[in-house]
């Protein structure tokens, strides 16, 4: 058996639809205001698709960029994992559609359905496959098309203003130096709050799971539902908790941290988390202002932009952390 190695991100990519939807655009669809949205969420604009387009389409662009950065051919991948809460089709998973777009076959592909924590969960899976010696190169892609599942009327405004479409990707490979790459991952869930942020339909516990009445009724089970106060309250507790857990596991403190990339759920949450951890502004990366919450895609999009902006230097201690629907939350600590 090979010596255990770490896994490391070898390349990143991201892709967003071209159509920009500003807060002002939303005021034409629902009773809301630019100020209300920005004050509550920090979001100024997000991207929506404007024709039939799937997470696999956005994901392919992100994946090809990540593969190019990593210098890896799609055919060399041993495993492809796609994270989404807005799958392109009911089944198979979006990973299969992505595999076809990448023009490869043979290697296993699977979807991970862990909502806002999806990217951290996928990193944990990829890391386990690489460290066990069962995979050399793993592609992880977070891809979401929220816009086709939002109630853009006034009734849905609390949720609809938050989400955006987008995709981010990372290629992981083995790192022989145990002090580099992913140092540890930490995953959590608490299902008692599962229905505080959810899309219910199609629900296999409802017979039949889709009805014609669901299609355009107000407050349809097909639209997301959120009790924002619960989510906010738990997020500002669980984020710092799991970040400290990851640091402590590696004998580090918040002072050692060079960059925190929180899942882009809400700028106000990120700011409260940073304040609680006493992290100065330059040590936290946020881009939700431009993209909204892209759930499983938000961390790789943000991480890639941070790298492109020179915010992540070799040797930097970087923490990726997420909290969201499930509730699920988690963190990955890595030495760049």
């Amino acid at each position, binding site marked *: 058996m090979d010596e255990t190695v770490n896994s490391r991100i070898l390349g990143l990519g991201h892709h967003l639809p071209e159509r920009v939807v500003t807060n002002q655009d939303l005021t034409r669809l629902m009773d809301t205001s630019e100020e209300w949205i920005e004050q509550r969420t920090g979001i100024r604009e997000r991207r929506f698709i404007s024709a039939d387009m799937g997470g696999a389409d956005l994901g392919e662009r992100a994946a090809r960029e990540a593969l190019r950065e990593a210098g890896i051919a799609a055919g060399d991948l041993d495993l492809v994992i796609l994270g989404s809460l807005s799958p392109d089709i009911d089944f*198979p998973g979006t990973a299969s559609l992505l595999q076809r777009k990448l023009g490869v076959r043979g290697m296993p*592909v699977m979807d*991970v359905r862990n909502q806002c924590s999806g990217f951290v969960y996928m990193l944990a899976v990829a890391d386990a496959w690489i460290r066990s010696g*069962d995979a050399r190169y793993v592609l992880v892609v977070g891809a979401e098309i929220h816009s086709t599942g939002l109630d853009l009327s006034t009734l849905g405004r609390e949720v609809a203003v938050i989400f955006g479409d987008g995709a981010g990707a990372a290629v992981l490979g083995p790192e022989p130096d145990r002090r580099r790459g992913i140092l540890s*991952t930490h995953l959590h869930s608490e299902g008692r709050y599962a229905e505080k942020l959810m899309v219910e339909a199609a629900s296999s516990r409802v017979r039949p799971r889709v009805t014609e009445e669901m299609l355009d009724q107000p407050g349809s089970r097909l639209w997301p539902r959120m009790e924002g106060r619960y989510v906010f309250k738990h997020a500002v507790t669980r984020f710092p908790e799991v970040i400290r857990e990851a640091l402590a596991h590696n004998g580090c403190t918040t002072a050692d941290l060079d960059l925190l990339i929180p899942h882009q759920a809400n700028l106000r949450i990120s700011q409260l988390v940073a304040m609680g951890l006493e992290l100065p502004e330059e040590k936290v990366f946020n881009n939700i202002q431009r993209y909204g919450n892209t759930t499983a895609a938000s961390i790789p999009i943000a991480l890639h932009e941070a790298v492109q902006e020179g915010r992540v230097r070799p040797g930097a201690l970087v923490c990726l952390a997420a909290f969201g629907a499930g509730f699920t939350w988690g963190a990955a600590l890595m030495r760049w």
Partner: protein
Amino acid sequence: MPASAVLGCGRHLPARTVTDEELARDLGASGARLAELTGVTRRHHADDGHGPSDLAREAALAALASAGLGPADVDLIVFATMTPDIAFPGSGCFLQEKLGCRTVGALDVRAQCAGALFALATADRFVRAGAAERVLVACAEVHSTALDYAPRAAAVTPYFGDGAGALVLGAAREPGVLAAVLHSDPDRLERFWCEFPASRHYPARMDREAYRAGRHYYQLDAAAVHPQAREALVAVTREVLARAAVPAERVALFLVHYLDARVAREAAEAAHLPGERVVATAEAAGHIAAAGIPIALADALAAGRVGKGDLVCCVAFGAGMSWGGVLLRL
């Protein structure tokens, strides 16, 4: 590096059985005709309001009990299903709450009919990488609420049943997962798929046109998929045995998982497997996508067909197309 092994296994089937005769009127064909089309004569349907996490809870408790463990001992849940309780969050979160586990990770994976093998392989990697010690692999489906009960689905709907199976995989001195090989090939995935609700569909992921056309129901081109499945199951059986360097003669039981049990049997025959040591998982209670393999394993253990130290070869093929093989030493 630690090894991983199956510490416990359990299953749960809903109490309500549904025979072909009961489906006959809706599906516009006699019970005998439905059996002829699919090879399935009875399956279980979940009670109204029950989702996969409800069925998985019972299977998980049985698996934990057989391992001498409780929910508090689990440090990761891996849940495989293609029929989740709700669109999101995943069924693993519901199971975490229903079992009363600590706030451990609840990973939801989607690999359709091969889901159990993808979940099992992933759990094995977590244990061997030292990232988890005891992983609950929960596999459950409630297909019955997704199916089309109209004559156009007479050759599809009877195949599927509801149920759950669970395994506890944990760190062990002797390896219990001897080999795992997994594959996907998306080329002709529309031969077995369900398109809607579809986020890629602009401007809304579900609309009247798609609904009225029945595009939210399973579509299956059995005549095209069967040969592909047969060939893949033969090849992956050989591949997993070769990977572990174990001759077929030493394997106590082969679990062959495919929605048509007759095709699974043909594949076993083509691979020259001894028929008396083969279980075609769909024979007992229809095809239960992610759950068929752990259910069949739990049944074989309960019946005394296999026991400690025996080799069990599990192979599966399904939508995606995704397929694989896992060789276990119990």
